[in-house]
């Protein structure tokens, strides 16, 4: 036997020891698990997405604040490398350094210029010795080209130029950690688009919080699965009880309570099936108690029932294993497989119930 099949049959045998059908238990548990896990997991997933969306909105706000501290006119001058001077760079950078130093959860604060669909770094707070940060940062140089990913179609750059903010839809990973990025347009005093600000927000504290949520999620899912197995067990128990009860009721419905033999309905069902299955010689005998109606009329039905019971005992003694007997009214019907005419003549010997 295949090892998996062997372990499955062992599992089935273990479940069967609980008095339930392993298949019913498995199916009921599976359906209950699907429903319960959906009830537990879907709200958890939606809640996780809602927390992430909340965080994205927060990062977007941080990006807007960062964009608001930049002097748009100075930044516009820096878009043209011909205007660059260290003094101009430092003046434009100073408010961003103060802003960045105030928030320890920010990795990078920088600004960029979109030159023909290619982003170039303009300002980067990591270049300033005045920046107070807990992170080790690699500064980007003025007009350092930012390499776009191969699958990046630059739509976000066009959206920024159109005045929309851009916040990455999910976490990004880099050497320095996990972060969300917000990009927000910068405008000069005349309202002209003058590049954009970028803020890489550290997700460390958020992920630590999510890890706590995850342990709650795992515990809820484990509880849901346990509950599903419990439901499966009770459903299988109920199913087994119902099957047993139906079988008992069926047995009662095909049995003659006076003799314990089959009744007419039982005879029709059992003997008909036995005849269909049997190949070879067989005999059917109808044993009729003589004058039973007279006995009933003379001695009463209690005496008549006693005669039937005594006759049934006599018939039962003559039955061989495999013979089937039924009683309807004052007649006994015996089906005897593998019995020829000679055997059928012999078998009624001793039927005399008196």
């Amino acid at each position, binding site marked *: 036997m295949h090892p998996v099949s062997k372990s499955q049959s062992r599992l089935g045998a273990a479940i069967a020891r609980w008095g339930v059908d392993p298949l019913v238990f498995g199916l009921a548990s599976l359906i209950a698990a699907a429903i319960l896990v959906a009830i537990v997991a879907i709200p958890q997933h939606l809640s996780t997405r809602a927390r992430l969306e909340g965080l994205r909105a927060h990062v977007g706000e941080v990006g807007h604040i960062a964009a608001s501290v930049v002097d748009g006119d100075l930044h516009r001058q820096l878009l043209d490398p011909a205007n660059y001077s260290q003094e101009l760079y430092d003046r434009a950078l100073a408010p961003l350094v103060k802003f960045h130093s105030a928030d320890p959860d920010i990795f990078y604060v920088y600004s960029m210029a979109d030159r023909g669909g290619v982003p170039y770094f303009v300002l980067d707070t990591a270049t300033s010795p005045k920046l107070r940060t807990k992170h080790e940062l690699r500064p980007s140089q003025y007009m350092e080209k930012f390499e776009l990913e191969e699958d990046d179609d630059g739509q976000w750059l066009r959206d920024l130029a159109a005045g929309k903010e851009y916040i990455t839809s999910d976490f990004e990973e880099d050497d320095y950690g996990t972060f969300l990025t917000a990009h927000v347009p910068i405008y000069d005093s005349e309202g002209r688009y003058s590049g954009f600000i970028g803020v890489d927000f550290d997700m460390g504290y958020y992920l630590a919080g999510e890890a706590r949520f995850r342990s709650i999620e795992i515990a809820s899912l484990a509880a849901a699965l346990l509950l599903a197995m419990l439901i499966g067990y009770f459903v299988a128990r109920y199913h087994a009880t119902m099957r047993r009860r139906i079988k008992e009721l069926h047995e009662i419905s095909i049995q003659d309570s006076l003799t314990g033999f089959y009744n007419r309905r039982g005879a029709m069902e059992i003997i008909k099936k036995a005849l269909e299955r049997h190949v070879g010689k*067989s*005999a*059917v*005998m109808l*044993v009729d108690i003589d*004058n039973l109606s007279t006995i009933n009329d003379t001695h009463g039905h209690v005496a008549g029932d006693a*005669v039937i019971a005594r006759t049934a005992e006599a018939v039962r003694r003559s039955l061989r294993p495999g013979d089937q007997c039924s009683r309807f009214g004052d007649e006994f019907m015996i089906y005897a497989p593998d019995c020829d005419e000679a055997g059928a003549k012999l078998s009624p010997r001793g039927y005399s119930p*008196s």
Partner: protein
Amino acid sequence: MGIPLSVSIGVTTCDGDGGDFARMHREAEAALRRVRGEGRNRIGIAPRSAECHPLGSAGDAA
């Protein structure tokens, strides 16, 4: 219990796998009716039918 009791019996047999419940019941009942008509406390064997006894001859062994 002091009541004289006897039984009458109708028998039918089938040699092959042509055993049909309704037919065999009918044949046994006919054999029983016949012996009850002849008196009580006896056994009646149904005639051998062609369906059940393809190789045997028809007859009554009552």
